[in-house]
């Protein structure tokens, strides 16, 4: 966990308003687990004031580079999308606890389910799993074809199904529809995406082995401000809690209230 100015190696719009940004710096050495994130200050100005949490999508330790993929939507990400090669970005990270790799072993089947801008962290996860000899199946959901990305990259790692809400590509519908239709079986589930998607998966597969990555609005990103807490399923009204930024963003299926 450190704060550093990192250099922009490249920035590309890889789908409609979806950017792939590669940054370089010493901080990469500390990046270990897939599913961790960085907290970015897009500008020195006080407007936007807060950092933006973005998942780590890929890591190249040799070149001290990492990749992130994000949607340019609001004020901060729009400014970020204008950074060019050799510009500097203020990065705090790596933050949070990622997906555990030791829960699956060689020959096991892992189902990786991603929705929209929840897809990126699954890429480095999948690479690591494949390296371990795990059999990976990807089910990726997008709004429509125009915002789809990384299909081939995932394909290169394992079976990959795409779902689009409007049916403009792959299966029409949600990722859960694909899982049902294809009757996918797995030893461990890994998922990242919008809350309704995670909730559907959590409801359906609770009891099985699985891990989901959450999003919440953040202040500090390091566990100090209590902005990002969620209740536990076992104590839905009580004072016990988890912080998405520092206890998560990855939690076991069934642990936190969605």
């Amino acid at each position, binding site marked *: 966990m450190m704060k550093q100015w990192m250099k922009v190696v490249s920035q590309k719009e890889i789908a409609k308003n979806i950017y792939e940004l590669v940054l370089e710096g010493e901080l990469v050495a500390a990046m270990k687990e897939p599913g961790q994130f960085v907290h970015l200050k897009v500008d020195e100005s*006080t407007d936007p*004031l*807060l950092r933006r949490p973005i998942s780590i999508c890929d890591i190249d330790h040799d070149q001290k580079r990492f990749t992130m993929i994000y949607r340019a939507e609001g004020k901060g990400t729009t400014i970020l999308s204008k950074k060019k090669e050799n510009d500097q970005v203020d990065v705090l990270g790596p933050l949070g606890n990622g997906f555990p790799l030791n829960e699956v072993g060689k020959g096991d089947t892992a189902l990786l389910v991603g929705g929209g801008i929840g897809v990126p962290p699954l890429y480095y996860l999948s690479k690591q799993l494949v390296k371990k000899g795990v059999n990976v199946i990807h089910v990726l959901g997008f709004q429509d074809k125009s915002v789809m990305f990384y299909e081939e990259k995932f394909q290169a790692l394992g079976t990959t199904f795409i779902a689009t809400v409007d049916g403009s590509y792959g299966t029409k519908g949600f990722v859960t529809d694909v899982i049902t239709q294809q009757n996918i079986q797995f030893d461990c589930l890994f998922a990242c995406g919008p809350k309704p998607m995670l909730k559907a998966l959590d409801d359906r597969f609770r009891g099985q082995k699985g891990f989901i990555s959450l999003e919440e*609005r953040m*202040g500090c990103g390091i566990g100090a*401000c*209590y902005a990002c*807490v969620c209740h536990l399923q076992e104590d839905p009204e009580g004072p016990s809690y988890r912080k998405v930024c520092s206890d998560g963003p990855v939690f076991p299926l069934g642990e936190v209230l969605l």
Partner: protein
Amino acid sequence: MNRLSVSLPGLDLKNPIMPASGCFGFGREYSKFYDLSKLGAIIIKATTVEPRFGNPTPRVAETSAGMLNAIGLQNPGLDAVIEQELPWLAQYDVPIIANVAGSQVEDYIKVAEKISKVPNVHALELNISCPNVKSGGIQFGTVPEVAYELTKQVKKVSSVPVYVKLSPNVSDIVEMALAVEEAGADGLSMINTLLGMRIDLKTGKPVLANKTGGLSGPAIKPVAIRMIYQVSQRVNIPIIGMGGIMSAEDVIEFFMAGASAVAVGTANFIDPYVCPTIIDELPKVLDEIGVNHISELVGRSWDRAGKTANCSS
């Protein structure tokens, strides 16, 4: 000579920089970034009698040069703070200011009495910005008589000096300050957040689950400076200033307005190293403006000639 040392009731500080309540938890997270002994003091997160989960999420929203928060006083409760957090903090050479909150006078008394006896707690900061449920939700922080009574009661039971943290959401901040001074407050802490709101255009609903939240950050600095300027000229107790501090220059501005120490809140989220950075920068800035000791700056902007009452617009 230490050019930054300041001495306030209950607090002999190596420097006047402390993290503001609620923006630093109980220090554990920031201890991974630097040695907490570097800080002048630490104001810990508001403590209530019972553990509290706080408000539903989203709890924060961004605004121009500011942020809104509606954490809702989440904290592990008095006992856990005394048994787990304060002993952990005792490993550092840094005085603790305990921020005390509650929904009725009895809550404050209970927390103040017990927490003020913990050895590394050198002062209390009374967070009077919450609605008083017993008086029908009226805020402790906006009615002078209510604030007076609360301060008086807490002073009776506290083993350490009491700083009252004023809310800026009032018509007359001087009146509030005078009331708590008269009740025996040893110092003031100001300002807490301004009440604000943001609406999500997509949903048409407030961004925060709690709807309204407290505005902090650089956006509120001019309001803080104005209030400290007004109050410091009317009271005889010191002020811990806060509201939008991001840099050593900001600290100087607060001192000139009339603060004797400062707290840094929101800026910790932007840069976890902000407090030690400010501490390191301060001597340089003092050199630039030709000042030997930071305390010489307290109230430098005061208007010794009298008051103006013009219409500003």
